[in-house]
Structure formats: C-alpha cells, structure tokens
C-alpha cells in the first residue's frame, strides 16, 4: 500500500477547532485523492462548513495539520492557498455583487495569470481575461448571463457563478459547500453530471445534503457528527452502517 499522506492532494490530520465550549471540529483526519469526489455529510451543525473554512484558510484550527499537495499550509493565508490551486464555493455565496458575472470570473483569471499590480493596461479590452472568463462561464452554463450583474442572478445562478470563478483558477482541488442547494431537481441533475465530469480535472471535497447526488457522485463518503468523523467509506458501506443510519440517515432509512 502506498503512503496515503503523500499521494493525497489534500490531507487533514487530527484537526480540531472549538468555539467556546463547542467542539465544531474534533480530531478530524481525512484525505482527498487525485481524481476522486469525497463527500462530507452530516446533520446540520455537524461542523462541515467549519472544516471547509479551515481547509480554505478562513478559520485557524486549534490543533492539527492541513497539507496541500504534500505541503503544510496550516498557517498559510487564504489567497496563498487559492494560488496553489484550491478553488472554493461557499454555502452562502460570496461574490462581488455590483459587477457583472463576467467581471467576477475575470478577477479569478487575473489572479491566476499573475500580478494584480498592473496599473496601465485596461481590463475591459483584455481579450485573454475576457475569453478565459467566458469559457469558464460557458462550462457552468452561464454564458447567457455573462453581462448580468451578480446581484441580479438567482441563488442557483450565483452558485454556478462561484463554481465558474473557482474553475477559472484551474484548480487541482475544489471545495464545494452545498452546491446543489436552491437548484431544483433539474439543476441538481445537471450539476451532478457536470461534477462527475469535472473530477477528472480536480479532486472535489463535496459537502451536500442531497443524498441522491452524494451517492451518485462520491467515491468515498465521510460522515461527520458533532465535529467527529463517524466513519469514512464507499457510498454502499456508509449506507449499510447501522451507526450512520442511527445518527444521520435514520429518518429515510
């Protein structure tokens, strides 16, 4: 067997984070391997978003270690992790609302292409920024909305736009926090197909409540309950596990 930590794109080791007396992340260890979709499920308040926040760099863990592509990034700021190829979408979308969808994506292209300390050349006539942004928008099916203000987009469209921004980074890892929420059944099915394709480009850590999507997509599933990892396994293993049924899947059996 190969060493997990060295082949994993993302490896989380013994991560803990408390908010006061509440242990939001409790000694979590998990890996994200190349080419896989690793779903993170758990009841509301289990600590899924908190974990994503620590991986992205917004929340500083109390203990433990996060490695991206073999490099310790536990103390690296958000933008440095993004530049290493870590793309992310938020549970509550976070966009520059007054500017167009295209401009939002162009910002990510600009970040990837190099320095933002360019003072002369106008962005609006920069074909390279524009073309790459349009390509990313086309991939998520937002071409028709490229000129719309981000503020005018529906919730579902905003999520798609966030994914487009993440794609523009040409990421090797994607953290997606409930990307299906607010999409409706048709949108979910479409995004499911899209993600199944996308995992060849980037490994995906997927937080999702839509169990159909999770079991259709995930190569492995980690169940989080009260900050702790209850188990990690294939979709079938997770579904068959009595502890998981009791803790989480109980209602719909």
């Amino acid at each position, binding site marked *: 067997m190969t060493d997990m930590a060295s082949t994993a794109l993302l490896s989380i080791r013994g991560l803990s984070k408390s908010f006061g007396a509440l242990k939001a992340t409790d000694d979590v260890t998990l890996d994200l391997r190349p080419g896989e979709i690793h779903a993170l499920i758990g009841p509301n308040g289990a600590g899924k978003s908190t974990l994503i926040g620590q991986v*992205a760099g*917004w929340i500083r863990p109390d203990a433990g270690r996060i490695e991206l592509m073999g490099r310790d990034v536990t103390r690296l*700021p*958000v*933008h*440095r992790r*993004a*530049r290493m190829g870590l793309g*992310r979408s*938020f549970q509550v979308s*976070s*966009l*520059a*609302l*007054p*500017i*167009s969808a295209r*401009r*939002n994506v*162009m*910002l*990510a292209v*600009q*970040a*990837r292409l190099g*320095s*933002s*300390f*360019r*003072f*002369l*050349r*106008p*962005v*609006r006539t920069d074909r390279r920024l524009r073309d790459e942004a349009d390509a990313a928008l086309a991939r998520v099916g937002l071409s028709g909305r490229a*000129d719309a*203000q981000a503020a005018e987009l529906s919730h579902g469209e905003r999520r798609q736009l966030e994914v487009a*921004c993440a794609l*523009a*980074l040409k990421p090797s890892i994607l953290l997606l926090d409930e990307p299906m929420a607010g999409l409706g059944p048709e949108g979910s099915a479409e995004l499911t197909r899209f993600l199944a394709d996308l995992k060849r480009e980037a490994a995906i850590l997927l937080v999702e409540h839509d169990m159909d999507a999770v079991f259709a997509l995930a190569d492995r599933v980690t169940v989080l309950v009260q900050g702790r990892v209850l188990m990690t396994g294939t979709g079938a293993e997770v579904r068959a596990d009595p502890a998981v049924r009791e803790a989480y899947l109980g209602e719909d059996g």
Partner: protein
Amino acid sequence: MAEAAARIGRPSREAVANAVLALALLAAPLIALQAGEPYYVNLSTRVAILAMAGVGLNLALGYGGMVSFGHAAFFGLGGYVAGIAAHHAFNYDLFMAWPVELEGTNQLLAIWPVALLVSGLAALLIGAFSLRTAGVQFIMITLAFAQMIYYFAISFPDYGGEDGLPIYTRNALPGLNTFDPLTFFLVAYGALMLAIGFTWVIMGARFGAALQAARMNETRLATTGIAPYPVKLTAFVLSGMITGLAGALFADLNGFVDPSMLSWHRSGEIMIFVILGGVGRLFGPVAGAALFVLMELFIGQWTEHWMLVLGLVLLTVVLFASGGLMGLLAGKPRHD
C-alpha cells in the same frame, strides 16, 4: 471625457457630465477675467486644488472603501513641505546639516516630488497600521494619526507652531510666472486633470479591478487568490500622495501654511467633497468641491452659519441622492 474616447459611439451620460464639469472649471477664471473680477480666478484655483485633495481621498474612500478621516495629514504635510522649503530658501539657511546638507528651495519642480514623497511615506506608515482594522476602528485610527501630526505641528516652534509659516514669495516654476493668478490656476487645473486621468487609468487596469473588488467583497478577492491588504495599502499610499500634492499647491495659493491644514476639520471637508460629489465617481470631488466653495462664498456672505446650510445639503444628498451630485447629473454608475 476620457471615457468617451475609449468607447466608440455615443458617450455615456457620465462622460458628458465630466466634460461639462472640466470645461466649466476651466472657463470660470477666463470669464472672471473678462468680467474684470480677478478675485474669482483665485477662487477657481481654490476649487481645483480642493477638488484634487478630494480626488486623492476618493481613490481610498470611493474606489477602495477605506473611509479615512485623516487625509488632512497628507494635505498638511504637502503644505508644510512647500512652506518649509520656502522658509529656508527665504532665510538662506539649511533644512538640515547632517548627514547631508539640505537647503531650502523655491523651485516647485523640487518641492512637488518631496511633497509626494513625504505624504506617500506618511500614508504608507498610517495605512500599514490602520488597514489591519476595518469599519469604525479604521476611521478612528486614521483620525488619531492625523491628530498626532496636527499637535506635533502646533507644538513644534521652529516652523511657526500655531501661527504657521508664511510663504513670502510664491514658489516658482521655470519659464512660468506663478504669481500670475491665471497661470497658477492653469498649473493647479493641470495637476487636477492629471490626478483624475491617473485615477481613471489605474482604476480601469487590473489594479483597479482588484481594489474595487476589495471594496465590494474582500472574501471574494482573497478566494480568487489575491491578497486584499497590499492592494489596499498601495491605493492608500497613492491616495495620500495625490492629496499631499494638492496640499503643496494649497500652501502656495494661500501664501502660508498653518496647522489648520492638518486639523480634523480639514479631513472632514475633504470627505464632504467626496460624499457631496458622489463616492467613487471620477469627477465627484470636482462637483463636490465646487459646490462647497460656492456655498462658502455666497451663503457665507449673508450668514456666518453657512455650515448649517451645508449640513442640510449634505444630509439631503446622503438621504435622497445616494450617488451625490454626480448621481443627479449622470445617474447610476455603470459597471460592465
């Protein structure tokens, strides 16, 4: 107007409004001279210089969302550079003897770069600290820094303390007679247009895209891989430099510099130009400063409580015309 040139076809309403403002300010002193009212030439110069101070603040406040309540620091420092240089030139003595001998000068081509440098360094220092905070804290820290410089100027006797420093003869430019009011107006007007053009160019470039995203949503900017702090700090420094250069011009216009240029009242005034004119609008500070000076002049003539009227106007603008005067003239800002 520059915007109109960039776009083929019909110029936007804002471009038209900008062109009208630029031409009106240029025409004002010419008309004043024709009408035999030379006083209004200096008044136009005052508008141009105060507008430029606002253009500086607008870069930080309007485009970058950094609500600095300490821009008088840069304005005053620029003013003191002009005043101190002229003071030593007038007395034929040294500004410092060690480690290098520096004497005064009345040459604006030497004074301006020093004013830019001094205000830029001050902005770097103040910004580096203040930008670690946000919101009300940021406002208060910028205010505190400016007040420190203000009290230093008051208590430092070498340069006049509370009384300030006179500039007996207006500082000079090669080949131009800066004493001539119209010439000095054109110098100030040219500087203002350069500052506006500079703002327009850098806000259209990648730097501007990043800065404006930092204002709209810092989380988004960092998530795309751009660190907000250095972008904002750079903008803050450029902002301080523009306001500092305006301060140097202001000292020369008035023929003296005193600590009131550094006071929080002055910071508030510069902020009023920006808010009155329209936050983050290219020509907003021109409209704002013009209205401010006109109100000071005409309403100030028949009541010393003109500030009360100004307060009411400001309140109306903030409550009912969120885009300021530019919002009234040109409608909502256009983003593509």
